[in-house]
């Protein structure tokens, strides 16, 4: 829902990194985004295309690596992908808890020239 603000932050970070390594062009931006982050990929790309106009990052392709939300059962320790309706363990029915996997929200790398 807040893709505008996220894209602003993303663009600034990309341009700072590109400047640091004296890049002349940013070709690709590889992002790792957990499913719990509530970000819509297409929307970020759309904002990015508009906001990056006139910068060396204009035209860069955003590549999203999505990470599924993992929960861990409090009873049997099973690690499972969060079911769509609750937090119960598919193996024993115990109550799951978040493991942190699925909250990723970072830039992994840039392809530059």
């Amino acid at each position, binding site marked *: 829902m*807040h893709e505008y603000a996220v894209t602003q932050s993303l663009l600034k970070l990309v341009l700072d*990194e590109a400047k640091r390594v004296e890049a002349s062009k940013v070709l690709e931006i590889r992002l790792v985004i957990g499913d719990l982050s509530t970000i819509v990929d297409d929307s970020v790309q759309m904002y990015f295309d508009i906001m990056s106009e006139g910068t060396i990052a204009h035209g860069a392709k955003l590549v999203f690596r999505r990470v599924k939300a993992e929960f861990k059962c409090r009873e049997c320790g099973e690690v499972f992908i969060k079911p769509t309706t609750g937090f119960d363990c598919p193996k024993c029915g115990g109550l799951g808890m*978040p493991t942190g996997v699925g909250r990723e*929200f970072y830039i*992994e790398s840039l392809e530059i020239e």
Partner: protein
Amino acid sequence: MEIKVMKNIMHANDRLAEENRNYFKGKGIKAVNIMASPGSGKTSTIMKLIEAFGDRASVAVVEGDIASSIDAEKIDKLGNPVIQINTGGGCHLDANMIKTAAESLQLKDGTILFIENVGNLVCPSSFDLGEGIKMVIASVPEGHDKPYKYTSMFELADIVVLNKTDLMPYIDFDKDSFYKGVKALNENAKIIEVSCKTGEGISELADWMLNVQVSHNPSV
């Protein structure tokens, strides 16, 4: 050529949030980020708490809204320092807004600073403000499924307030399911049931707020 970055996308916000956190810590300010749906009773809870604190705490308030100053005017009538932030369509407050607001409020040491976020259970959870306490308010008419749908919000909360309990007899609210959802995500979260209408639970919430120790660690 590929270069490794490995930096959080919210880097700029997080850095400013850290500055806010240090500022609050240095002045012994308890900053409370209040997040909830529109209409769940954020402003009412703040007003009830101010009343319940009496002279036990000095309170200042940051009111975040897309537009209007309706809420800030209510707080102003109580005589507490208040500042309105209009985000002009933005769905959340960010650390920079809080930095500016905190400076202009000229907060006294030891103040409890309530930060009423924009009514929204999604976006505010992604923006660390530098607060010491995250309070999530859910209200009975919204239904018991909120923790299951807005997991990040409930996962990060230090305290979950269940408001409008006076409406419980009229609404199919499955309290066990609500508690189970919150505890699954966050077994350390304190849950307090209140009714801003009848005043039930407010003194318990006020006492919790006055006594809670602030961790001053980022949790987004």
